[in-house]
Structure formats: structure tokens, C-alpha cells
């Protein structure tokens, strides 16, 4: 697979989004995903971020960006306004994970999330050896990590099952490769397309 944006999960996310959709990208960074989606798919995109440097970068990139604190929720957005609400490699950086997931599926028809899989075998090995894992997907020390939630794909899927969140599609990656067997053990990055169960 080609990695057009230099970040593997962007490819997957872009494939799941149809031309002309309305997309909200939470923790949008410098806006490169949104710029790609706008230029390639004519998406109407908005980024949300709370880092002044990222706000500036998005404006420099000509991408819509709204400075909000994701921990405070998405209360300003109407129900179902977006086709997709994306959160790429940021879900593990918010404390109110459960509430944010619910909010994503309130304002969006579907949510797309990716996160580093804590259950990857290299991480298990580090823990078994008595140390917190430091890897390509978790490149921080315990004392300087922006990540505040540590969970595996199995953990995440259990939460979804409990909260009526439907897993529409899921992919696991290890480096540049798609993982096909035992994702919770072999995938370092997980990407999910999520929806609400029909009422």
C-alpha cells in the first residue's frame, strides 16, 4: 500500500471517506489529513485542536480549524452534522475516552479512530521484563508521554460492545504491513470504522 501522507492510517481513513463528505478531524495537528481529503476528495473538512502551534499550522495550510478543548466535549456541534468524525492517533491522549467516543457518534454518522495498540507483542515483552514499553508506536517515556490512556484492541472492542458501538471495519498495522492474524498481538497500530447500532 502507498503511504501518501507519510502516516499509514491516513491512507485507510481516506479510503473510508467518500467524495464531498463533511468531516471533523479531532486532534487534527497541522491539518495534513484534511488538506489531503479536501484536495483529493472535495471533502468539507474542519479540524479541531487545542494546541496554538497546530491552529497556526492549519491556517497556514489553508485548512479550517477550530480551537477547542476536546476534553470539554463537542457540545457546540449539532447531532449528525458530519458524515465522519476522525480521530487519528489521538484517542489515547484524552482522559474522557468514553464520553468523547459517544460525542463522536452523536455529531457524526460514523467515527474513524486509530490508536497505538498497547497489546502488541513488543509491548507485552517490555512489560514482562518489568519496563513500560517504548516503541515506534509508543515513542515516549512514561514521564513525558502525552498519552494518558493505555489500552489494547481487545480492551477497546470490549468497551464498544458494552456501549452499543458497532465495529464496521477494523485494520491492524505493524510498520507498513497489514496484519492479518491475531491483531491484538501483532498490530502496533489499530484503525477502526465505528457506527451506532440501529435503534
Amino acid at each position, binding site marked *: 500500500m502507498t503511504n501518501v501522507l507519510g502516516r499509514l492510517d491516513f491512507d485507510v481513513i481516506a479510503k473510508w471517506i467518500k467524495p464531498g463528505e463533511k468531516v471533523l478531524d479531532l486532534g487534527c495537528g497541522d491539518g495534513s489529513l484534511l488538506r489531503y481529503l479536501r484536495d483529493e476528495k472535495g471533502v468539507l473538512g474542519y479540524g479541531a485542536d487545542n494546541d496554538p502551534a497546530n491552529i497556526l499550522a492549519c491556517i*497556514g495550510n489553508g485548512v479550517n480549524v*477550530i480551537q477547542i478543548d476536546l476534553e470539554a466535549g463537542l457540545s457546540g456541534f449539532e447531532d449528525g452534522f458530519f458524515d465522519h468524525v476522525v480521530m487519528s492517533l489521538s484517542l489515547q491522549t484524552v482522559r474522557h475516552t468514553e464520553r468523547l467516543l459517544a460525542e463522536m457518534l452523536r455529531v457524526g454518522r460514523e467515527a474513524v479512530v486509530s490508536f497505538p495498540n498497547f497489546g502488541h507483542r513488543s509491548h507485552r515483552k517490555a512489560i514482562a521484563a518489568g519496563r513500560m514499553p517504548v516503541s515506534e508506536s509508543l515513542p515516549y517515556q512514561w514521564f513525558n508521554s502525552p498519552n494518558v490512556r493505555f489500552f489494547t484492541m481487545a480492551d477497546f472492542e470490549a468497551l464498544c460492545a458494552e456501549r452499543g458501538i458497532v465495529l464496521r471495519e477494523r485494520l491492524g498495522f505493524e510498520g507498513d504491513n497489514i496484519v492479518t492474524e491475531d491483531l491484538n498481538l501483532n498490530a502496533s497500530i489499530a484503525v477502526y470504522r465505528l457506527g451506532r447500532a440501529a435503534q
Partner: protein
Amino acid sequence: MDTSTNSVGEVAPQRARFDAPLTLSGGAALPAFELVYETYGELNAARSNAVLVCHALSGNHHVAGWHAGNPKNLGWWDNLIGPGKPLDTRKFFVVGVNNLGGCFGSTGPMSPNPASGRPWGADFPVVTVEDWVAAQARLADRLGIEAWAAVIGGSLGGMQAMQWALEYPERIRHALAIASAPKLTAQNIAFNEVARQAILTDPDFHGGHYYEHGVVPARGLRLARMLGHITYLSDDQMAEKFGRRLRQADLRYSYDVDFEIESYLRYQGDKFAGFFDANTYLITTKALDYFDPARDYGGRLAAALARAKAKFLVVSFSTDWRFAPERSREIVYGLVHNGLDVSYAEVESMAGHDSFLLDDPHYHAVLRAYFEGINT
């Protein structure tokens, strides 16, 4: 233009007269009117690089540079506008205008009432943000500007940028609303009402016809400005800037100035009362109070904004409680829900509402990046 100092340099105001009547929101019509304005930079051949700068309560057309013989009288947004500055006059043709009802040369309460030959005084009709923008559109026609590349303003000026997007969606490509609001809150109207009462009850007000008595309601205007200054600063900034510091070594046990903050407010009040017109102050606070584009849409701002086509930049400041970030967010969500392009920055700043006039590096970087992205 002097590019070595990043200043537009010496500038001179110009005057435009409009002889077609202008019907105002309140029903009255001005048979003719004049607007005073300044311009910086050059209008390009395509006439596609014009930026209108709208002023707030006490501002005017003198936005950048200085006037002949008065190099210290810098325009009120000189830190933003000039060659190499965030609103770069090498790229843009910038227009500043004194609004209708103003006291800096445009037709207002101090102008002669054609019906009587005497100054309008309190008989000058109440004008609104809508009326200002209608008058500004006449000026745009006169300058040959079919569409503004951008309209920018802070506070009340941001309301004018919004109104441009609503009333003339084809004539504005970008709207920049800084430290602004889609409508004032009750608290905000309350402050304006106290300011107005200070002026209206000043014995020198004479029902607004004080010019004829050779006096100005300076006490009222002074109080109005003192109150305003309290609300433009944040509690924290006031504490840092003044604290409980005394002017003298000891308490005076009198009603003279004890604290630095008292001295500051008196100074600001006196200064303002020395150059600003009380009738203009009354009119302008009313324009602030009345602005509420959602009013005709059952209070639904998103419905009101449906007419807009411009791309927006909305900026607020963390400690601004007079035009709080929450009010800016209302604008942002109203725009998003119409599928309009909008970016929103909430700038960390100590300086309260006044922040929009300061040159915080991040704030100016945001404006610079946004203006750089505007095609001319």
C-alpha cells in the same frame, strides 16, 4: 511608503460625499452624507486586493501611519498594518473609514442638520451596524471596489465584518471577526446603559444640544469611559498592572487619588472626554446593543448566517469577558452548520478585551498566516 520602519508613513485623510439619500434602520433618511477615510497601499489592476478595516466604539478612519506634523499620532491598528506587517500593504490596499454618526469628520451629530443649519446634536438619527455597512458599501462603489478581499474588525468592528458577509455576500471574500460577538449579552447592554446614563444625566448634556451652549458633558463622558476601561481589562491584568499600589507613600483619608488604578481611570476618562463626542458615544453604544442578526430568525444564528458566503476567521482572547470566547464560538458553530469555511483561534492573553489591539506574537502570527492565504 517607508518600508524600513514597516510603517505606511505619513498619510492624509480623504473625504467622499454621497448625494443619494440613505434610509436608515430606524426609518429616518439622511438626504446626503460624507465619509472620511484613509487608504494604504495600492489597489491592484483587478481591484481584488482591497481590505476594509472597521473600527470599534472609539476608533476612526486613522488606522495606520501618522498625519503630517504629528508623527506620534499613530493609527489605532498601526501594529497590524504596514509593509511587512501581518496585514501587508505591499500586497493589500487597505481602507479605514470613520463611520456614520462619528465625530472624526464623517457626517454625525456635530455636522450641520440641513433642516436647521445648526449641528444635528441629539437629533442625529440612531444608526446601526447595518447602516454603517450600507454607507461603507457606497464608499466601496466610489473606490471601484466590487468585492473586498477581506473585511476585518475587532469588537464592534467584527460585527461590521459579519454584517458585510450577511448583507453583501457577493462583495466580501473573507470576514475576520476579532474579539466580537453575534449579539451583546444582557450584562454587556447593561454596561452600555450605565455609560449612556452617565452622559444623559450630565447637566451639561442639554438634551444633546450642548454644542449651542458652548459646553460638553465631560463628566458623563469621563464616567462612561472609566466604566468602559474597567470592562476592557481582565481582573488579572488589572491586578498585575496596578495591584493595590498607591500614588503616594500613605493613604490620604480623602477622596483624592489613593490608588494607581484610580489615577489611571481618571486619566483615561479625562483624555477621552477631551476628544470624543458624547452624542457619537450614545449612538455607537446603541448600534452595539441593537446588533443581532439572529433576531429575525427566531434567535437562530445559523439560520441568519445561511446567506453568508465568505470564508471566516474568528479570534477571541481567553481573558476577554466583555466579548467572551463563548460568544465567538457561537459565530463559529453558526458558520460550521452552514458548511462555510471558518477557522477559530482562542488566544491566551492576559489583557482582556483590549488584547485585540495589542501585538501578541501568536495572535499576529495567526492573522499573518490568514492574510498570506488570501488570493488577490
